[in-house]
């Protein structure tokens, strides 16, 4: 090794050139001490021995914590393998549905040796996550793994934050309905905001019809119903003369297959024409999720939410008008470059 050769040359490292197999096993002189000296205990140590076996790592608490967790992990895998008659790498471990939370790095550093770098912290939390993955298997395996379950739970509790180590994802607020069954949702785009009420067009019950440009619905259940949209108490064709704006408003209903299923009443304020149209569409999409998915208690990937999310109408478009900057003509436009 290049780094050690100068130390060898300077005699810092002791150098013995005799080949190993030619050297005598015992290099002690041929002095035989009396039996009393052999059987006598040696003098006590001048300095006391450290208590922790990981004293020389300079992070004894962290090393012993890592050692305990890794031995628990190995023992759990072995016990589960025995109980399920499978090797450790073939255990049917499922990852947890959400990322787990553990004690923050700063708090753990204070608890351990006073400092904790990110690498060892990640190693520790990695082992805790592996143990959390094994816990449901160990619980299901029965009484054979009861003591392992207790040990794993104790280890996880030790490193869990006050709220528990399972993360609760923030739930979207449920859509409000009034006593008539109308949903109330809010949609926004640029500086426009729209407040939208939606009510289902039931063929049996008379729908609240008003003068509108679209054909009025028939009360007979055989004929298909028509969606009537009122914006600021005026018909949609009057507020949005452009067809593209009207299409944008009806797009969520179209892709969810709910055209004709709901009447829409919107109060919209702020912004321009297309901004207001997009705000109404956003509110209609949220209302659809409330009427259909929420009533049937469907999951996030089921029902109309899946279709609407994929189309992007459930997202509040975050694009806003960018501010003008000094030295520029507009937000991005630069003045004409002059050579001199």
């Amino acid at each position, binding site marked *: 090794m290049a780094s*050690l050769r100068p130390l060898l040359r300077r005699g810092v490292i002791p150098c013995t050139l005799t080949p*190993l*197999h030619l050297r005598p096993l015992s290099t002690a002189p041929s002095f035989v001490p009396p039996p009393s000296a052999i*059987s006598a205990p040696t003098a006590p140590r001048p300095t*006391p021995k*450290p208590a922790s*076996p990981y004293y020389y790592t*300079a992070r004894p608490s962290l*090393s012993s914590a890592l050692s305990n967790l890794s031995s628990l992990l190995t023992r759990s895998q072995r016990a589960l393998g025995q109980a399920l008659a499978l090797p450790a790498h073939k255990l049917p471990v499922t990852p947890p549905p959400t990322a787990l939370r553990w004690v923050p790095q700063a708090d753990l550093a204070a608890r351990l040796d006073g400092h904790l770098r990110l690498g060892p912290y990640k190693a520790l939390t990695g082992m805790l996550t592996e143990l959390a993955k094994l816990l449901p298997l160990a619980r299901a395996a029965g009484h054979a793994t009861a003591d392992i379950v207790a040990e794993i739970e104790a280890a996880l509790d030790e490193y869990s934050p006050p709220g528990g180590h399972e993360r609760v994802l923030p739930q979207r607020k449920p859509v409000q309905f009034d006593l008539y069954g109308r949903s109330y949702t809010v949609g926004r785009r640029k500086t426009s905001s729209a407040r939208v009420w939606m009510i289902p067009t039931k063929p049996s019950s008379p729908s609240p019809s008003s003068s509108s440009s679209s054909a009025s619905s028939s009360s007979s259940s055989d004929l298909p119903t028509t969606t009537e949209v009122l914006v600021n108490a005026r018909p949609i064709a009057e507020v949005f003369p452009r067809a593209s704006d009207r299409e944008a408003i009806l797009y969520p209903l179209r892709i969810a297959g709910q055209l004709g299923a709901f009447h829409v009443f919107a109060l919209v304020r702020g912004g321009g024409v297309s901004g207001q149209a997009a705000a109404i569409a956003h509110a209609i999409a949220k209302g659809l999720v409330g009427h259909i998915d929420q009533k049937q208690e469907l999951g996030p990937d089921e029902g109309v939410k899946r279709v609407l999310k994929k189309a992007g109408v459930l997202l509040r478009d975050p694009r806003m008008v960018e501010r003008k900057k000094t030295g520029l003509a507009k937000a991005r436009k630069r003045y004409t470059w002059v050579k001199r």
Partner: protein
Amino acid sequence: MAPSTSSLVPLARGALQASSRSFSSSAARRVLVESASAPEGVARTDNNLTLEQRLLQRGIVDSLQNLGSTQHRASATTFRPHKTRTPPSKDALLSALLAAGAHLGHAHAAWHPSTKSFVHGIRHGQSIIDLEVTVSALRRAANVVRAVVERDGIVLFVGGKTRTETTRAAIRRAAEALGSNGFAVPEQWLPGTLTNASVLLPRVSASAAPKEGGRPPLPDLVVLTSPLVHPHALRECALTHTPTIGLVDTDADPRIVTYPIPANDESERTAELVLALLGEAGKQGREERMRKRERAEKIDRARRARVEDRRRARGQESETEEGM
């Protein structure tokens, strides 16, 4: 969960037909799965068997493993009594080292000429280490560890961040075997641990004054499973005059440690075998120290008892004299 005998008999017959002494679990799996009602064309692996089938399979393997004949063509005709005895301990260690792959050195192109004394030869461009030298070096290292622990010394086992979790566990186990004399650095070595100990390491006892000896105690022996990974540790041990034991491969100069053990430093099993041996030697040293202490205490107790008896006897004599 005990399987019924009626279902065992055809399986057992098939199992016995499959192989005699060498009853491998793969053979059992083949036998079981053929009789199991698995659909055609589906891959027959552990994942397709239910828990009951897996437990049944394991039960069959466990119960039938020790059955079967140990006869083979050579042993069937002649009886060799000397082969029935257990082999001597030196051969057992040699065969264990060979099985662990301790003899496999590095490529001959990366050879360090100082290792010439323990390179047995070259095969396919790879240096082969002479395991006879390894055995004698291991014995010497074990003697050193035993002697250090007998004198209540501190033995430090150093791993490396490149080592796997199983080797780190072996290092921890070796330190555990030595009890209060065993210490471990399973992960990375912090440079300055020995030379800058007063800054990096905490005080051992709060009551000890700094002048008297409150400075951190340094290890009396350092065992390195891969010395080349720890140039800082080697340098610090040399500067603080700490003897070292290490596994040296054919690409390392054996003079970097005090007691080199020529062996494959990349093999996990070799490292674990060596650590287990040194741990066992340390345990023997501890037991010897305890025995010596007990003997000394027993002698001391007997001496004190004799002194007490003499004092009591003198006291009685003086009483009788006064009485008289």
